[in-house]
């Protein structure tokens, strides 16, 4: 195994754009135009100190070299749990770049935007059908903003009934955004523990559920990849005390054509289009977090809403109960275009097959790795599975070490140390777009890493060995933050 630790020839790091170039250089040409700018001199700044001065090729080489330092879906398997790193189809990119979508202005007269409105209306309808909800807003820019908007709907609805209530129940397996969004919506968070099957028990909800609770936020399948099979009973508990059920739809990729949240007693949910509907993650956005509701919340949806009118579509703002606007204009339209293209590409059968194959791939990995790594919960998994580092801890090898070693094998690691209820969690979501051969290669790598953990734990603890940079000092970055380049002072 020793040859693995031989240092790979790491590419040199790339200089910052501010450290390259030469005074007076630019990658932009625009003919000189004569005449004054019309602005008084005292309003103007001097030249922007430190701003880059690079040529076009220099810029491209800079960013191309930077791109080589990244893992991406088209070069590496990327089984990040709860992130649904599926293939991002090229046709979606092509159609999103049509001038009829990319060169339209949101404040143009509606007559010039009929195609866009038709698309948005069609997407709302399709998402409502997939999730079994009655109405959808596409405005939220991301899942977390969808959560905020969804909770605002809950709050507006309950306020109208006389009391917005004070608390939101969130299970300990929830994404961190759930409690953060609750706080932002003016609620206190009550955390409940999942049971030893990794699920929320109706009795645990009943214990804290009373008239002070506005809603329960539930993820289903939850972040352990387990279907909350008691969800309807849980919803009954919440509804019996006048509360509402919010579904974090981050894991919708497990459910298409398999079960609809609208049938689970869910009143409001968000869907992450950058997960389930294949739009690229972009290194951290843009995403989109549409919110679907049952009829009881319809009147509270953000404005403007797109309505059919005669032969066309119009924008309507005249909803007195609406929570207002959560984002400027129409949300992340370019993302919505891609999601719509994805949905019409696959159609009803393709969407159902998508979730089925997502389940097949996750269960296959789970079966093949369960003899090598300890599975967190014995329950059957849906689209992702969670292992722990318990077996490897005997050799003082942690989840972090396993993740870093995977990089040497050319795989992006799973999500690690989440959900928080699992010590040393390794959360694997292969998605449906991976072939059996890729899964087998990943399984081989994980198996080989487990062997290395036994035979040569140091190899893991010092990993990665072959990446452009090695483990980075995160403590130092936080202790003395350097958040921008600054010119050297003499």
């Amino acid at each position: 195994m020793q040859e693995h630790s031989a240092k790979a020839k790491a590419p040199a790091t790339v200089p910052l754009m501010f450290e390259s170039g030469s005074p007076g250089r630019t990658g932009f040409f625009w003919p000189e135009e004569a005449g004054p700018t019309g602005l008084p001199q005292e309003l103007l700044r001097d030249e922007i100190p430190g701003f880059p001065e690079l040529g076009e090729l220099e810029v491209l080489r800079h960013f191309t070299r930077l791109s080589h330092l990244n893992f991406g879906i088209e070069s590496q398997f990327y089984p990040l749990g709860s992130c649904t790193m599926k293939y991002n189809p090229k046709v979606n990119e092509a159609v999103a770049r049509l001038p009829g979508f990319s060169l339209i202005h949101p404040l143009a007269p509606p007559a010039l935007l009929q195609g866009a409105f038709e698309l948005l209306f069609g997407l709302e309808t399709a998402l409502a059908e997939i999730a079994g909800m009655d109405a959808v807003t596409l405005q939220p820019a991301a899942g977390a903003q969808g959560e905020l908007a969804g909770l605002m709907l809950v709050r507006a609805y309950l306020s109208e009934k006389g009391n917005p209530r004070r608390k939101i129940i969130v299970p300990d397996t929830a994404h961190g955004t759930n409690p953060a969004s609750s706080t932002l919506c003016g609620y206190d968070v009550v955390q409940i523990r999942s049971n030893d099957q990794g699920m929320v028990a109706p009795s645990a909800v009943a214990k804290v559920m009373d008239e002070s609770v506005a809603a329960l936020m539930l993820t289903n399948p939850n972040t352990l990849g387990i279907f909350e099979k008691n969800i309807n009973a849980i919803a009954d508990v919440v509804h019996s005390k006048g509360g509402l059920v919010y579904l974090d739809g981050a894991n919708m990729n497990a459910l298409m054509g398999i079960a609809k949240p609208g049938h689970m007693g869910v009143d409001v949910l968000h869907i992450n289009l950058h997960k389930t509907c294949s739009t690229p993650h972009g290194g951290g956005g843009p995403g989109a977090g549409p919110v679907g509701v049952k009829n009881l919340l319809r009147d509270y949806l953000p404005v403007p809403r797109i309505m059919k009118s005669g032969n066309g579509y119009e924008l309507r703002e005249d909803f007195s109960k609406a929570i207002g606007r959560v984002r400027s204009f129409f949300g992340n339209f370019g993302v919505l275009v891609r999601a719509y293209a994805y949905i019409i590409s696959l159609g009803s059968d393709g969407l159902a097959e998508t979730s089925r194959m997502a389940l097949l791939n996750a269960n296959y990995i789970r079966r093949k790795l369960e003899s090598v790594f300890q599975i967190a919960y014995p329950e059957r998994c849906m689209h992702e599975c969670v292992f722990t580092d318990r077996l490897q801890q005997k050799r003082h090898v942690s989840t972090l070490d396993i993740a870093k070693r995977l990089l040497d094998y050319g795989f992006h690691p799973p999500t690690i140390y989440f959900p928080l209820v699992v010590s040393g969690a390794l959360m694997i979501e292969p998605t449906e777009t991976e072939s059996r051969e890729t899964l087998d290669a990943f399984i081989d790598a994980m198996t080989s890493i487990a062997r290395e953990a036994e035979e040569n734990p140091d190899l893991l603890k010092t990993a990665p060995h072959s990446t452009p940079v090695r483990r980075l000092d995160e403590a130092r970055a936080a202790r003395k933050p350097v958040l921008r380049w600054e010119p050297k002072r003499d």
Partner: protein
Amino acid sequence: MRYTPHTPSDKAEMLREIGLSEVEQLFDHLPAALRDKAQIALPPGLSETAVKRRMAALAAKNGTAEDWSLFLGGGIYHHAIPSAVDAVISRSEFATSYTPYQPEVSQGTLQAMFEFQTLICQLTGMEVANAGLYDGASAAAEAVLMARRLQEGKHRVFVSRALHPQYRQVIATYVKNLVDVELVEVPFTGRGGIDPEFLARQVDERAMCVVLGYPNFFGVIEDLAPIRALCDRSGALLATVTTEPLSLALLKPPGESGADIAVGEGQSLGVPMALGGPGFGFFACQKRFVRSMPGRLAGQTVDSEERRGFVLTLATREQHIRREKATSNICTSQTLCVLASTVFMAMLGKSGMRRMAEVNARRAHRARERLVKEAGLAPVFSGPFFNEFVLKAKGLSRLQERFAAKKIVPGIPLAEFYPELQDCLLICVTEMNEEEEIEQLARTFGEG
């Protein structure tokens, strides 16, 4: 099936490994009542060719900046975007990667974020900037929320009526459920800027912050000095919101005028209009506030061999660590749009940004002069502007057809947002509006 590579024999063998014989058994532990009703009633799938046709047909129903003369700004701007920008953001290493939680294989994204933070600091004249937020409107709301964290005991937020109307709506939505925030709308003056006298009367030690556009929704460049003085007197924070950041290549940056927080929408820097999204919000402030900031931050550090590298840092502010005590619930930073903008700013650079900004200002000023002198439109505000301005055209609604016939959208009618501004039009002129278009705009108004 498209995008799922499983052959029938793959499925059979994988199922056998799992110990099943049918795909449906993978979810037979779900309640039957749910499974039985799960069929999705949508049309069947389409070939790629059919998808392209359908999407092209929808796209063809929209009026684009290629086919129409659009004099539209109001928060979203049509600018030249070098082809290099799309080439870079189309690279799958950038487009398909996740938030850079594994820094060893994300240095490309992380370094670009660090460079972006630097560019925003330089452009705004501020000390620190984050790696991006959803959009300008939520960035403005986050500015208010940060002021709330920093200004305990103060609860009045003064928001200029000349701030973008949708931004004001979003701020209102965000703070609606926070009992300790009171929004106060500040009127505008004949200059088209925030009313300093109103502020002088109202701003006292209860003032948490003052939020105003720079340039504002009317395109007017606010005079920040007197507002800064008022803030100094009362202890309020000054937050500027810039929807057209190209202007900051030419105008005194907010940091030079004493802004505590400078936020805005970044779309105009290299991102196509796309019906107003996705773009990105930028968020910059004084260094002493850094631990109260929302959003992602890339920071410089070293690896175990002392090589420079970058990581996401100060994550203890964030929801995946702090959960309900986080500074914000946001966990994306519109990174691909931020990258587009980073490439855009690198391409134009110091001289190119200045050149483009000057062309905008020059053409806009010339257009305004023409519309007033030749077409008889009436000036509405007296304040200086960058590339958009407000003029009054009598009987504006009756002119629509005439403009439509010539494929011109002359501007944004303001009456919808400001009932007091009947017949007023917010007209934006960028480097994409050629002289002939401007001439035709003036001529079409003049025909009346």
